[in-house]
């Protein structure tokens, strides 16, 4: 917590990370945890493709396969993609808007630890009697009748980590509204900040329906309620609505930050201002808004009737318009620019055809009568992997390479980065393109095996071989990361040379207080403006050097989340173990005691004094 960097032992570093409220360190925590779960989800994906490599395969048993697909989807969405995006948001957004931290540093830490313990809890199901097996959508009739504790782990784990996500979303909303530097008007915010802003609003409205649905599920399964038991007057379709009212905005929660990252990358590596900035902002907001109007397109075959299906079909098609606007503005950003193909730019360039392909199949599925054929077939599997891998994951990998120097003051190896890109990109298309046709040829999704001679054998084999390329790409990436950390060559400020936004103007390594003086923002791409005017400081300052108020580190968020983790075991074994209710109580007591401590004990933070700041070099310019 000292302002002077010093060598610390492992224990001290660990304690530092357990208690940190610094957005930059929380970003690293998100990156490590999200990266770990990405590997776990990837291994699950490989098991799926090995099982489907040939017909009538018995590599994994029927029930286990359902656990694997459920955990693959749940892990990738909730525990890999979202946390990784939060990692980049934490790393970049406060720096992009000229803030010293997020609005609620304590909540930022709490959000991370709730996600962490929720994710660990969910994955412990593998070792405690079996993972959830009703798909990531966990449709109620199957989920309620699922034996064992898998679904309980799903409901409780997601409830805890979902709480963390909600907290993080609120935090970014408040941060972006309140913490912008002087001159950083809304229409000067970088696109990544804009997309974070919109996504935080989506989280605020989308996660509560999930929370409600999960609570109903928890009550049904663990405490004898009957919300989803139709024989007792319950209704399973309610779960479908609640889940998709959350679930559809959720996919925009994933893709919009990726759009933001790509917007930054296109502009930076084309050495050109983002084309149609205001149209891009408007399109982002519109996509976020329309994202709440279309959930029932996931339920076209549920039997909602022609009118509902027709309305939701038309609403869904409408989303193509702002998305198309974004695609064309990116293209026109490159047009007339000076494009350099760094690794992040390669991902961005690879993203366009991949995402367009995913988008147009989305339109096909928006046509409700056609969707009756495509729904729950391999066509939809291909579609959402084109959107989520071709959009979100390419965005995450692009962001990883792009923001790595900002986060660690080193640069990932470009050559290995490009090898990763080509392996992953080609493997991705090889795996998923062919799956469109599997769907058209009548192959349903979520099947643990398939009979030979239904015309699916060859395409499945091709798909499985493609997955090997993706895995190889990820392995090269891991090698790259390990080598970069081992070499530890500092790169300094603006390592890409064409940085345009405020985060690249800060001396590296970024001081823990971010800005010695809060900057004055003079336009869109403020760092670019300063560079053009030959300002070697990289920014104009809005204030003289003065005392900086900083929050204290705290272990309380960790303990609060730990309490929920402990309590969840009590809920899980309710009615089965005599210790269940006491453990539930114990967990809640831990959490509430931690909350009480936080409320009753004044923690006013501390000040870095002006004199210390004047002596501080704060990295090299």
């Amino acid at each position, binding site marked *: 917590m000292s302002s002077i960097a010093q060598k610390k032992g492992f224990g001290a570093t660990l304690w530092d990370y357990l208690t940190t409220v610094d957005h930059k360190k929380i970003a690293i925590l998100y990156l490590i945890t999200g990266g770990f779960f990405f590997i776990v989800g990837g291994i699950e994906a490989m098991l799926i493709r090995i099982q489907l490599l040939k017909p009538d395969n018995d590599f994994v048993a*029927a029930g286990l396969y359902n656990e694997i697909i459920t955990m693959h989807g749940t892990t990738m969405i909730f525990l890999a993609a979202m946390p990784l995006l939060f990692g980049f948001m934490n790393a970049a957004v406060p720096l992009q808007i000229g803030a010293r931290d997020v609005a609620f540093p304590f909540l930022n830490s709490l959000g991370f630890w709730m996600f962490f313990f929720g994710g660990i809890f969910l994955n412990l199901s593998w070792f405690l009697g079996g993972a959830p097996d009703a798909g990531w959508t966990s449709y109620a009739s*199957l989920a309620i009748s699922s034996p064992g504790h898998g679904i309980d782990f799903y409901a409780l784990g997601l409830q805890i980590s979902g709480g963390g996500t909600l907290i993080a979303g609120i935090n970014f909303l408040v941060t972006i509204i309140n913490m912008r530097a002087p001159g950083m008007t809304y229409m000067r915010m970088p696109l990544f900040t804009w997309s974070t802003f919109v996504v935080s609003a989506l989280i605020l409205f989308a996660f509560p329906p999930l929370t409600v649905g999960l609570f109903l599920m928890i009550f049904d399964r663990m405490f004898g309620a009957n919300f989803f038991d139709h024989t007792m007057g319950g209704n399973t379709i309610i779960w479908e609505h609640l889940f998709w009212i959350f679930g559809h905005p959720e996919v925009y929660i994933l893709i919009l930050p990726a759009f933001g990252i790509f917007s930054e990358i296109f502009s930076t590596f084309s050495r050109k201002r983002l084309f149609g900035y205001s149209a891009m902002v408007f399109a982002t907001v519109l996509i976020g808004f329309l994202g709440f109007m279309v959930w029932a397109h996931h339920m076209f075959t549920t*039997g909602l009737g022609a009118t509902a299906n027709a309305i939701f079909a038309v609403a869904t098609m409408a989303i193509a*318009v702002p998305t198309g606007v974004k695609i*064309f*503005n990116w293209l026109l950003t490159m047009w007339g620019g000076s494009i350099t193909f760094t690794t992040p730019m390669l991902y961005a360039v690879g993203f366009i055809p991949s995402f367009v392909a995913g988008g147009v199949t989305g339109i096909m599925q928006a046509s409700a009568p056609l969707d009756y*054929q495509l729904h729950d*077939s391999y066509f939809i599997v291909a579609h959402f992997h084109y959107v989520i891998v071709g959009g979100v994951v390419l965005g995450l990998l692009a962001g990883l390479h792009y923001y790595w120097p900002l986060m660690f003051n080193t640069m990932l190896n470009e050559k290995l980065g490009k090898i990763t890109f080509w392996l992953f990109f080609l493997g991705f298309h090889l795996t998923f393109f062919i799956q469109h046709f599997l769907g058209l040829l*009548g192959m349903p999704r979520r099947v643990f095996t398939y009979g030979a001679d*239904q015309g699916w054998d060859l395409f499945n084999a091709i798909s499985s071989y493609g997955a090997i390329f993706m895995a190889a790409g990820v392995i090269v990436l891991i090698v790259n990361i390990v080598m970069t950390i081992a070499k530890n060559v500092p790169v300094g400020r603006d390592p890409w040379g064409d940085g345009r936004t405020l985060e690249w103007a800060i001396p590296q390594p970024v001081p823990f207080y971010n800005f010695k003086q809060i900057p004055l923002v003079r336009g869109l791409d403020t760092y670019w403006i300063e560079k053009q005017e030959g300002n070697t400081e990289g920014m104009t300052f809005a204030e003289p050097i003065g005392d900086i108020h900083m929050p204290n580190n705290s272990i309380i968020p960790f303990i609060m989340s730990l309490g929920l983790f402990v309590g969840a075991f009590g809920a899980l074994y309710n009615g089965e173990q005599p210790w269940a209710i006491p453990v539930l109580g114990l967990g809640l007591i831990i959490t509430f005691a931690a909350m009480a401590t936080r409320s009753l004990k004044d923690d006013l933070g501390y000040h870095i004094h002006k004199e210390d700041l004047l002596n501080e070099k704060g990295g090299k310019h």
Partner: protein
Amino acid sequence: MMKGLKKWRLFSMLTALMIFLAGCGDEHLSTLTPAGQVGRDQLDLMILSTAIMVLVIIVVMIVYIIAIVKFRRSKLGEDFMPKQVEGNHTLEIIWTTVPIILLLILTVPTVIATYELADTKGMDKKDENGNNTALTVNVEANLYWWEFEYPDLGIVTAQELVVPTGEKVYFNLKAADVKHSFWIPAAGGKLDTNVDGINTFFLDFDNPSDTLEDGVFYGKCAELCGPSHALMDFKVKTLDREDFNAWAKDMKASADQAAPATAVAQEGQEIFEQSCIACHAVSGAGTAGSVGPNLATFGDRNRVAGYLKHNEENIKAWINDPQEFKPGNRMPQPEDLPGRNGKALTDQELDALTEYLMGLSVEE
């Protein structure tokens, strides 16, 4: 129906060519080889939407390729400073309105087809005698098998749906345990079988299925329903109306089937009546709601347990250990059957049971 779409037949032909090149899959299973009007309407929409989308992709790819070829820094030089363009209103308007127009082109047939495919009024149409004019089948999806009841005909069957050709066949769909989804890819889109209520739709078939490779269309469960979801297949046999009427009559008559011909089969019948009949009916006359699949047509079927090849070996293997084949299904292991007192079936008993089951037939 859907006269507005007729002109898209041109596209149909184009796509037919494309599909031919790509290999259009099996005629009894692929959505690309529709067996009736419903499937054809959906394929037409697929072709229309694909055509529009390919157009969009081509435009995007042209701009994209020119941009990344023409404006690379390696060509323009390290010092080239691009003009910092803010944007262009005309372009923004163009790429907002053109997609809207393209989407409208897709929206109109989409909405029309949505309503047409949901129109099940024909189900309640009555002739002068008060009988329903159209055939309705009540489908009940069970953990991992399908029951098909023909309420107007007073017959019931399982695993193999039999329908007449050349007319709309209406379906009432529901699930007995967890949610499933009823999908005959070649005939048309799926509809979920919910536990909470009945879903209704229709399909139609042009031709009798006896010309197909297996003599049947393939049906699938399209909603994850448990460990053996992948194995919850069914088959569809289509007959022209005359043959269908004959089949229905035979089904109705199967209530008083003649005693099995051979002594071995008679022994099988005894075992069946002791241990199996509590769940499995052998008469096609009846109503829905039985515990296990109706076996009246067992000897005529295409598959054992919905997906295994229909031979004596598989029948014995299945009866001997159903959990091994379809994990999570509700059929008891042989030793748990009524009257078995924990004893497994001997080879001789299995032979007898198999011979009896193979003799259950309503087709001549």
